[in-house]
């Protein structure tokens, strides 16, 4: 056993031991462990298999930079594709490696390695072309390296999505982030500090667990500042416009039962102090378990008190790994440091010597030996001498890549090559966005803290706040990367050896070379062809190496090769966290009329019918299905009386001298002569000359008008009118107040409607003379105030009774009682649809589909010939001039009278699979004609009466005869009765 738990140190709670199992092994850890640290502490180095070739893989990074230690959690809360390095250990946890069988140790899938030479980059594209990729896809995906979603017991995390606001958002709680938050918080700014670690401190080794340490002191003080919010275990994963930052918080504190919380934080200023990611130096078989980033080794030692090996080789090209070597030696490991440089820093060399660490200068590790864990490495010196060093751990450091992903996502910060550090850094982002610390390529801890404080000072100045004093902390880290000699990879000494440069996607240097030879020489193309940078770590560990290798192979400079685009999310984010509780019935707002309880009590089936309104679709009697119920209700309206809930119709109160001018501009008809107590039907066009809505306007008195819109277009119409008044004619004297829900509605309709109304004993005159079609009245029905409009959408005499919503149920009860003697029935949306189709009335969403104008729908006579202009006039005329062949409203009778045609079905010439010449907009079973009737829009339809046309429904062709679109009350005598 070579990986061990140290007897002291770390941020783990040794008083709380935890037991768990992994791939059938019973193991133990401590509270505060991640699954990864616990596995290492148990000397489990092999944690999974690689994505494509099923090569044995171990832990490589210690956080989100780990390229693939994915596990499946069998319990508690079964879930898959959990990253071992960020999964906190819990008592009784049962884990297994993903995409292995029966285990990572003895994986049958490893047989694929025998054919590895046949599986280069682009292999899938070239091979699985015939007959179709989809034939092979299930097998390929099954064999590839992600886990299976658990079955019925799958964990459904409770997610919450919420907004947040602050003066300053600080991303990262390392030295720079802590300093920035402290300066801003002390200055009275509202601050949100986000950090993806379980404890603050960033890469300060072990400091987060030291109660006397600077990190802990900062954290404690921040927790006391009233306007500072600390979000540990939270990752900023996306930057969007105007400083809107997405943050995923895991297991939020103070929110029992909540697993994930997604923040949408709007910050006035943003400081990103997200640190830097170490990159490896790939060499032959450097993907073997036991080869890992030097920074990861440091994390295991410092945070988790785990020494991942007893005989270590540290391979580096910069000074930062010297600290790792010293830490390993201090933990009792035998260490050899292999430095690619010929002249490492003298003080670093001296430190190694005094710690008993062997140093090999100007040398390279060329190959790892061992299979399920590293057993030795080959080291070549500058004289070409190769020697084999036995080891059980290789810590690699190829330099550091500042984590400026969020800056890049602003699309204003460019990535620029930094020669001395051999990496990319970001230049300026938006004015309200700053990088600080290692994210800005400043790696020394004290400098990072000062940089963070400085950035906070600048941010506060823009907010009009004065930065509070900041004391320089005493932080010691003598070995940081100040000079990096790039080593993008070590060429293998044998051609057969593989050098994996992107572990997440099993991408080798050979794959990169192949892609270049095949012409994929842009980084964006190469990325997609090889999948380098497309794995779970999104290239955090391997991307810059790939860029360097492309430069080396093509002779281009690294700056010229360029980076790929950084896109959100920075880390994997569960969709459920983004949605939060916004699902199913809470996905979109739904609305009720004040009569919902009344409808439900009478057995109505409620569902949406326009603009999220829940309305009664039909009121089935025992044994009735929807169509029978709808037919019975429609028949009642044709023969006696019905009442339906028209509450959702849009209603807008207008007042002012210029209302007639407004109406004349909005509608195609002339409204200027509309007198008090009278109404008029109107059609409203959008700017492009197509019908936006149709509705009725009543002039209530000399001062006020009431504009009705259709239900579905109410919001659109409101916005349209506001735009006219606020933007185009702010000088007009018009007041507009939406009053839709103030009024509840009972639309009484049918040949007996007037008799029912009389039985209600209103205190106003309801004779034909006093209350003609398009007339109105106001008064009382008993103790209920009502406003009555004579409008019809059914082809029968109708009386729209409106009352303040508080009286709605009482009014309906009265109507039902008064109408009982006349056979009144409540009518739902389905019956209403039948009635309006029979009468040939148009409907938003059916005939008014966003492509039709007034002439198309037979409303040409309404177009004023005297008005100089109205909205949409020019566009409508222009369009009709350019293309006079229009889809026109027609009636349609299926040749087979009982054949229902799906609404929306295309009409094509002879029913062939060619471009459509129209479509069926509505189809119902007529209670008047006892057969199926339909409305449709047909090219030049009005000139094709009597012609047979064909609707195509999948593989069936339905012949229909073109007829007039009014099937009932063609002279409108019943409507006006």
């Amino acid at each position, binding site marked *: 056993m070579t990986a061990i738990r140290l007897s002291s140190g770390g941020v783990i709670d040794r008083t709380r031991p935890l037991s768990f199992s992994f791939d059938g092994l019973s193991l133990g850890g401590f509270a505060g462990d991640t699954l990864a640290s616990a596995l290492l502490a148990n000397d489990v180095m092999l944690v999974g298999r690689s994505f494509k070739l099923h090569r044995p893989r171990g832990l490589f990074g210690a956080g989100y930079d780990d390229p693939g230690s994915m596990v499946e959690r069998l319990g508690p809360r079964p879930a898959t594709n959990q990253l071992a390095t960020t999964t906190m250990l819990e008592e009784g946890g049962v884990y297994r490696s993903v995409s292995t069988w029966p285990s990572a140790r003895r994986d049958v899938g490893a047989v694929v390695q025998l054919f590895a030479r046949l599986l280069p980059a682009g292999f899938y594209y070239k091979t699985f072309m015939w007959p179709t990729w989809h034939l092979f896809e299930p097998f390929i995906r099954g064999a590839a390296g992600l886990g299976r979603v658990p079955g019925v017991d799958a964990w459904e995390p409770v997610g919450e999505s*919420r907004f947040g606001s602050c003066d300053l958002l600080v991303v990262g709680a390392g030295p720079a982030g802590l300093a920035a938050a402290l300066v801003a918080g002390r200055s009275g700014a509202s601050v949100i500090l986000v950090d993806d670690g379980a404890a603050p401190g960033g890469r300060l080794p072990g400091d987060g667990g030291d109660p006397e340490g600077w990190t802990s002191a900062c954290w404690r003080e921040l927790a006391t500042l009233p306007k500072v919010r600390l979000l540990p275990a939270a990752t900023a994963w996306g930057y969007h416009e105007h400083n809107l930052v997405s943050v995923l918080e895991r297991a939020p504190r103070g929110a*029992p039962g909540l697993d994930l919380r997604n923040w949408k934080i709007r910050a006035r200023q943003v400081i990103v102090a997200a640190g830097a990611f170490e990159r490896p130096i790939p060499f032959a078989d450097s993907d073997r378990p036991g080869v890992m980033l030097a920074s990861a080794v440091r994390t295991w030692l410092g945070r988790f008190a785990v020494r991942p090996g007893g005989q270590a080789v540290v391979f580096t090209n910069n000074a930062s790994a010297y600290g790792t070597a010293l830490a390993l030696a201090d933990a009792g490991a035998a260490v050899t440091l292999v430095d690619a440089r010929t002249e490492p820093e003298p003080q670093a060399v001296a430190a190694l010597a005094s710690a008993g660490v062997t140093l090999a200068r100007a040398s390279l590790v060329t190959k790892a030996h061992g299979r399920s864990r590293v057993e030795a490495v080959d080291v070549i010196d500058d004289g070409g001498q190769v020697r084999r060093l036995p080891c059980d751990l290789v810590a690699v450091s190829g330099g550091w890549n500042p984590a400026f992903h969020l800056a890049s996502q602003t699309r204003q910060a460019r990535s620029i090559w930094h020669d001395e550090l051999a990496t990319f850094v970001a230049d300026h982002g938006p004015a309200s966005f700053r990088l600080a610390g290692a994210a800005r390529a400043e790696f020394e801890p004290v400098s990072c803290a000062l940089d963070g404080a400085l950035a906070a000072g600048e941010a506060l100045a823009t907010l009009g706040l004065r930065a509070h004093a900041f004391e320089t902390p005493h932080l010691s880290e003598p070995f940081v990367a100040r000079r990096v000699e790039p080593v993008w990879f070590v060429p293998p000494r044998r051609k057969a050896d593989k050098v994996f440069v992107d572990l997440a996607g099993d991408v080798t240097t050979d794959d990169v070379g192949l892609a270049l030879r095949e012409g994929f020489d842009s980084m964006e193309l190469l990325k997609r062809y090889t999948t380098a940078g497309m794995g779970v770590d999104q290239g955090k560990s391997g991307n810059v190496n790939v860029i360097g290798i492309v430069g080396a192979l093509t002779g281009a400079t690294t700056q010229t090769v360029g980076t790929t685009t950084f896109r959100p999310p920075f880390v994997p984010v569960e969709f459920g966290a983004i949605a939060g509780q916004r699902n199913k019935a809470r996905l979109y707002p739904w609305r009720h009329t004040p009569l919902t309880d009344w409808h439900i009590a009478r057995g109505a*089936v409620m569902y*949406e019918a326009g603009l999220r309104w829940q309305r009664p679709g039909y009121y089935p009697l025992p044994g009735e299905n929807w169509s029978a119920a709808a037919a019975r209700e429609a028949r009642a309206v044709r023969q006696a009386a019905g009442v339906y809930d028209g509450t959702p119709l849009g209603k807008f109160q207008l007042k*002012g001298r210029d209302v007639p001018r407004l109406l004349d501009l909005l509608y195609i008809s002339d409204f200027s002569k509309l007198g008090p107590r009278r109404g008029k039907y109107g059609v409203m066009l959008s700017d492009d000359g197509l019908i936006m809505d149709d509705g009725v306007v009543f002039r209530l008195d000399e001062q006020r008008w009431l504009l009705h819109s259709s239900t579905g277009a109410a919001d659109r119409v409101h916005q349209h009118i506001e735009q006219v008044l606020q933007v185009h004619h702010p000088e007009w004297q018009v007041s507009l107040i939406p009053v839709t*829900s103030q009024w509840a509605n009972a639309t009484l309709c049918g040949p007996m409607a007037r008799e029912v109304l009389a039985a209600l004993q209103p205190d106003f005159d309801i004779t034909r003379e006093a209350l003609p079609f398009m007339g109105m009245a106001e008064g009382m029905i008993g103790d209920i105030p009502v406003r009555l409009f004579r409008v019809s959408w059914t082809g029968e005499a109708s009386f729209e009774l409106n009352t303040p919503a508080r009286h709605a149920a009482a009014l309906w009860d009265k109507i039902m009682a008064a109408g009982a003697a006349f056979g009144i029935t409540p009518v739902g949306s389905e019956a209403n649809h039948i009635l309006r189709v029979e009468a040939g009335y148009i409907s938003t969403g059916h005939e008014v589909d966003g492509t039709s104008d007034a002439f198309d729908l037979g409303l040409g006579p309404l177009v004023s010939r005297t008005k100089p202009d109205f909205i949409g006039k020019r566009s409508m005329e222009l369009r009709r001039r350019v293309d006079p062949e229009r889809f026109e409203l027609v009636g349609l009778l299926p040749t087979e009278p009982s054949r229902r045609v799906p609404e929306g079905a295309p009409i094509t010439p002879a029913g062939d699979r060619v471009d459509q010449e129209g479509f069926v907009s509505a189809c119902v079973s007529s209670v008047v004609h006892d057969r199926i009737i339909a409305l449709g829009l047909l090219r030049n339809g009005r000139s094709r009466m009597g012609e047979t046309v064909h609707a195509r429904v999948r593989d069936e062709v339905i012949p229909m005869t073109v007829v007039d679109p009014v099937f009932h009350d063609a002279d409108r005598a019943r409507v006006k009765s």
Partner: protein
Amino acid sequence: MTQRYAVTVVTVPMLAIFEARGREAGLAAGLAAACLPLPAPGGILAVQPDGCAVLRAGPRRVVIMADMTMEAELGSALARGFAACPDADVALVSDMFCVFDLTGPGAEDVLAQGAPLDLSEAALPAGHGSGTELWGTTVILIRIARPEAGFRIVVERSFKGFIEDWLAVASGSGSARRPGVMTAPPPSWQPS
């Protein structure tokens, strides 16, 4: 079920609510006739000694809220006042809105799940209100002063059930969705 956030949701009994819209001079004149002030822009809520509250909800929008017992009298006064104003109007909207009081230390956490508005006390102090979006609906939020501490939510009554459901779920309780609604439409509506 234990709540995740410590809040109390109370449906306020129906209030007398009037909405006035128009130009500033017209609004001021109409309100003055009813002995009400026109608050300065900025979401200020002017509460009168009799409890009638006037909220400047926008440059050209004022919402007046009072106890229901004042509806008739207030309505008459406002109608008289605005009848004389050619460039402003008032409408009774008591039936159109419902009002919730969400109080408790978790109120901000609950509302932040649906409202993009900055809900901090610095941005929305007590005695101020603002129009905003709440789970896709349009609402007015008014901060309730301490000691109750929380928010008054004025929302169109048609969304009452939707908001009730959200407030329950967002506070960590179970769904409060009304049974019998949101059923599936008949088969003929399914895409063919």
